[in-house]
């Protein structure tokens, strides 16, 4: 036998380890970056793994995060600022200096700001620093700002915040350690890649039941104990039927409803009047209930009353009113939501629905959890235990990306609340700073009258209207915002409608703009609906031959499909080279038991002339002399750039971007004067700060006296009042009353019926809009997408490792559909919608709803982008369904074309798509095939990688 070679077993992994925050997706995990000197002595990334102490990922790291090295060393990275020298789309650029780039940007931005700030639209895509970018846009004074939430998951954020002051999105989590029954609706990887995986692992190990509700059985759905493969967009019917069953079998947590919700509040029943459907209120504005102890009306917010859930009452003024509970019961007990009724449209079996409802009720009420943890409720009453109903749910994009997503999301929350399972042990838990009030006390700003040259906006752009009075309109009632957010087209568009910006700007509907400024959003490709139409809009010219969108500034780290369509490129860094702040002012990394925020800091230096986008924004803010960025003597307020801003900016006295280590000596949390050593403390602590909640504050945060008071003291909560769950949402009814002709702010005629129908204060199911406006017999199938887990929410296919896992996508169809068109694996088909058609290859599968086809999204790339060769599979076989999705709905009755979005929130309805399939000739490449983008400014990509050879140690 040969002698075994001696192997060096204890080589140090790197020369040093830096801890920062991942940015391979929106999950924001803590990472350890191992750096080792390369042959020339410069530190190179040897390895990245998860930070065990980090609240989000607790040490693990997903397929994206573990491939971060290839993202960092991508050949598609931009090298220096670029100025366009050829026509848009040609990819002809000239490299320029940062001085020149910033002079140009300052000139373009400054001239618009001096005349009409709304003619500059600033939309940031996968932005994780909206507390800065939004503030920057406020200081600029334009009403036109949002990030990508409008085409991502605003339905989940808005649906939750209007209902229970939290949201699935990033604002809560299942109680992974205690839940016994978990329902996962639709594609939900978005903002919780590792937490969901960790959680599912825990549930499976513990034997809790996992039910997945999804037309496609992949990923999490594949390991679920039960797969409910319903038809896309019918989740609201399924959930409605579950609610129907709970009402029918009287398995509802009535005590919970009375304590924490508006179930007993009285709703005025006075059809035709301007108060119909609003809450009956006393002289002080408090909602009225019928108090059974005193046999008279009481304040619905008061403690120690016994509010009636049933009974029609005659109010002192003679009108009648009924409690919310009765209205709900009537809605959901109707035959519309009977399991037998919903069986056909959902594709489910009525018995299965009844069984799942029975399981939910059994776990909630027969397997309740009791924690020996005393706590004090909002009214000061002490409780010895915390009682939990161990049912939890999660949903994201699969629900969100339908035009009925807001109401469906609300309906899921109603289901949770009827079971008593919001923020109780084993239920769905808030992450601080949530819950907020319902809706949050944050109104949108940017009405036409508030926009003035060189004047900041009076408040943040995005918020939560309580009624028509909070819409952002001009004197004629037209949209104030370019994306028509907070107009009658999308009254509650809490994240804006980035997906409408380019097309609206090109059509000058509602008005034209002079500068479009975008960041990290691939709007000329996979982030837009109707890609061909969007490219036309980006290159449209007026009668003088000038571009209709005259100037486009774009910041990206990579040569994406969008770069060639911009006039000025501000090259961004990778996530390992930058400062960032993941803030409580925006979207922190809190977990249910802790308040947490985080930073990124540069762990390697760029080897090229690139700058972090936020750094550039602060530079521009100084040059443009924004008031909050300029000292009284005219000098720059944050000469140290972004880190200086992170430490020293105060939104309110004592409250800044980071909550940890504030105060003179760095011992304050939440509020405190700026601490010059704050970032040093973050870096020393693994790039995050976590403040653990007291155990008595861990649950019932919406009504927990201690938590509410603590939240106010720490600056994370505005109101000492409890958050009362709005089963019945009065703001919706206010819009509806306006549509019915009441009040001084009413929608245009064309919108009256639409608002009356969809702004139902009680959640209901309706058919997704596209299906109501096209011939569904001609387009019988639903088409949806998801991204593979190893790419979800990540930025591009230039990653040499990830693309070896998925470099081309297929259209997955049910075997029965394949049989009906005589197609087998890898055959080519034409997939058509009312907008256009795409040629692609199929793969047959069993685990998909038979009426549904689906594919991996954003695999298809355009030739010339991302440093890929023209014959890369991404270019030749990869395809996008985006080409089939119209950004506008077909004309409805009034002849007006609404955005292809949720009528309430403006959420892009990606998953409403209806298609037809036919077999195509079995040759060629995907269609449509776009002209290759020029990319002369980019270096060629290497033909071989041997990353790591520089670290090799010989055996002895």
């Amino acid at each position, binding site marked *: 036998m040969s002698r075994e070679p001696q192997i060096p077993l204890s080589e140090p992994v790197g020369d040093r380890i830096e801890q920062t925050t991942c940015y391979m997706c929106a999950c924001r995990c803590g990472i350890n970056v191992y750096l080792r000197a390369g042959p020339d002595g410069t530190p190179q990334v040897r390895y990245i793994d998860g930070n065990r102490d980090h609240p989000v990922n607790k040490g693990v790291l997903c397929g994206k995060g573990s491939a971060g090295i290839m993202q960092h060393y991508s050949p598609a990275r931009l090298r220096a600022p670029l100025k366009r020298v050829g026509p848009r789309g040609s990819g002809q650029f000239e490299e320029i200096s940062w001085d020149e780039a910033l002079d140009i940007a300052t000139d373009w931005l400054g001239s618009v700001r001096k005349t009409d700030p709304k003619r500059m639209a600033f939309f940031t895509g996968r932005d994780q620093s909206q507390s800065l970018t939004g503030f920057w846009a406020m200081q600029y004074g334009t009403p036109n700002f949002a990030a990508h939430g409008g085409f991502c998951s605003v339905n989940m954020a808005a649906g939750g915040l209007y209902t229970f002051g939290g949201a699935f999105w990033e604002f809560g989590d299942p109680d992974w350690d205690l839940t016994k029954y978990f329902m996962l609706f639709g594609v939900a990887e978005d903002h919780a890649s590792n937490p969901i995986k960790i959680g599912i692992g825990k549930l499976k190990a513990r034997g809790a039941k996992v039910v997945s509700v999804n037309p496609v059985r992949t990923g999490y759905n594949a390991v679920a104990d039960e797969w409910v493969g319903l038809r896309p967009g019918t989740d609201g019917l399924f959930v409605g039927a579950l609610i129907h069953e709970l009402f029918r079998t009287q398995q509802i947590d009535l005590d919970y409803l009375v304590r924490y919700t508006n179930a007993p509040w009285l709703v005025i029943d006075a059809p035709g009047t301007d108060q119909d459907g609003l809450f009956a209120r006393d002289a002080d504005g408090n909602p009225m209930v019928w108090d059974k102890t005193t046999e008279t009306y009481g304040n619905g917010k008061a403690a120690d009353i016994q509010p009636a859930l049933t009974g029609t009452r005659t109010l002192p003024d003679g009108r009648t009113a009924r409690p919310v509970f009765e209205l709900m019961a009537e809605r959901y007990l109707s035959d519309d939501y009977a399991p037998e009724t919903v069986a056909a449209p959902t594709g489910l079996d009525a018995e299965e629905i009844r069984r799942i409802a029975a399981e939910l009720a059994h776990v909630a009420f027969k397997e309740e959890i009791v924690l020996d943890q005393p706590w004090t409720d909002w009214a000061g009453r002490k409780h010895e235990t915390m009682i939990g109903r161990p049912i939890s749910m999660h949903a994201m994009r699969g629900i969100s990306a339908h035009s009925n997503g807001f109401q469906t999301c609300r309906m899921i929350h109603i289901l949770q609340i009827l079971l008593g399972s919001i923020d109780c042990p084993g239920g769905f838990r808030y992450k601080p700073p949530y819950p907020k009030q319902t809706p949050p006390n944050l109104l949108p700003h940017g009405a036409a009258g508030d926009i003035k040259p060189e004047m900041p906006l009076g408040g943040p752009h995005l918020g939560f209207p309580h009624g028509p009075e909070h819409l952002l309109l001009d004197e004629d009632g037209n949209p104030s915002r370019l994306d028509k957010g907070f107009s009658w087209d999308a009254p509650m568009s809490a994240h804006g409608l980035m997906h409408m910006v380019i097309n609206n700007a090109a059509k000058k509907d509602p008005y034209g703009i002079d500068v479009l400024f975008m960041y990290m959003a691939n709007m000329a490709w996979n982030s837009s609906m109707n890609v061909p139409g969007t490219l036309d809009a980006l290159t449209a010219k007026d009668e003088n031959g000038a571009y209709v969108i005259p100037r486009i500034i774009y910041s990206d780290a990579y040569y994406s499909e969008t770069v060639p369509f911009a006039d000025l490129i501000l090259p961004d860094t990778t996530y390992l080279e930058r400062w960032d702040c993941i803030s409580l002012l925006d979207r922190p990394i809190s977990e249910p038991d802790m308040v947490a925020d985080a930073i990124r800091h540069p762990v390697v230096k760029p080897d090229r002339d690139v700058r972090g986008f936020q750094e550039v924004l602060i530079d521009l803010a100084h040059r443009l002399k924004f008031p909050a960025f300029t000292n009284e003597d005219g000098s720059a307020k944050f000469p140290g750039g972004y880190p200086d801003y992170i430490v020293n900016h105060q939104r309110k006295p004592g409250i800044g971007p980071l909550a940890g280590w504030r105060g003179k000596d760095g011992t304050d949390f939440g509020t405190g004067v700026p601490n010059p050593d704050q970032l040093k403390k973050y870096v020393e602590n693994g790039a995050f700060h976590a403040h653990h909640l007291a155990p008595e504050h861990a649950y019932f945060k919406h009504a927990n006296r201690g938590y509410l008071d603590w939240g106010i003291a720490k600056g994370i909560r505005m109101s000492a009042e409890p958050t009362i769950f709005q089963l019945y949402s009065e703001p919706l009814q206010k819009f509806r009353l306006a549509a019915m002709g009441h009040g001084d702010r009413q929608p245009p005629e064309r919108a009256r019926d639409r608002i009356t129908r969809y702004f139902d204060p009680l959640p209901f199911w309706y058919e997704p809009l596209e299906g109501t406006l096209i011939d569904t017999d001609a387009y019988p199938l639903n088409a949806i997408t998801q991204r593979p887990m190893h790419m979800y929410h990540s930025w591009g296919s230039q990653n040499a490792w990830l693309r070896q896992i998925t470099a081309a996508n297929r259209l997955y169809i049910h075997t029965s559909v394949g049989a009906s068109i005589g197609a087998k694996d890898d055959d080519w088909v034409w997939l058509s919608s009312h907008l256009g058609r795409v040629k692609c290859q199929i793969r047959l599968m069993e685990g998909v709803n038979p009426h549904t086809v689906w594919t991996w999204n954003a695999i298809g790339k355009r030739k010339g982008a991302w440093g890929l*060769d023209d014959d890369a599979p991404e270019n030749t076989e990869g395809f996008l369904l985006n080409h089939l999705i119209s950004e506008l709905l077909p004309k409805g009755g009034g002849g007006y074309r609404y955005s292809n979005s949720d009528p309430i929130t403006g959420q892009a309805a990606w998953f409403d798509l209806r298609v037809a399939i036919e077999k195509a000739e079995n040759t060629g490449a995907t269609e449509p095939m776009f002209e290759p983008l020029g990319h002369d400014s980019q270096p060629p990509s290497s033909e071989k990688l041997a990353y790591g050879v520089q670290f090799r140690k010989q055996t002895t």
Partner: protein
Amino acid sequence: MTCLPKTTDKKLGLVIDLDICVGCHACVTSCKEWNTGGYSAPLSDFDPYGAEPDGAWLNRVHSYEIDNDHWKGTVHFPRSCLHCEDAACVTVCPTGASFKRASDGIVLVNPDTCIGCKLCSWACPYGAREYDQDDGVMKKCTLCVDRIYNETLPEEDRQPACVRACPTGARAFGDLGDPASAVSQSVEERGGFNLLEEFGYKPVNKYLPPRKGSDHAPAVPTTPAKTTGAPIEKLFAWADRALSR
């Protein structure tokens, strides 16, 4: 021909839980990332941005649908070297480059003596060996031999990169020769099985089968409650009781 040790002191290996694996590829890329700079450095990638990107990977995940007596559904199946007790890839090696360590049973390739003849990849029934075109040698799972004994790492990190990264906890590492080890216990409890048992190579790595979904169903009445009469009236009567806010 290369000889196998008669016995090994330990049988280090992986236990992979097919009930939990969601197919996220964390184990795949963390393996690539570790090993491209570790003992096997580099794991070369040919045509990384072109038509046929093709690199050396020591661990891959396959996802497919199955429908048989035991299981119907989608399975995510991670696949890497199983460190067989009767490793044909070792006995076939003409230079002694492939070897099984007597101390812990890990099967390795010595890159200094491997001539890249590929006999081992033909001999391996599991397709677990990867020829590195650029390096001219065979690469394979090392069980992260340069991690598991690495005294410069914290003790809790001395495990293969794939196990360290796996977000769902579907992968475990340990001594399958020790019946008392956690990995052996889980194999015992869950009916862990050998891949292609009938081939007789005695793989050390084990797979845990998917659980039956029905195992997790809460006990509910088999016949759901039926109502007669108007449910809404019954509901209102039920809800009409003293409830305190």
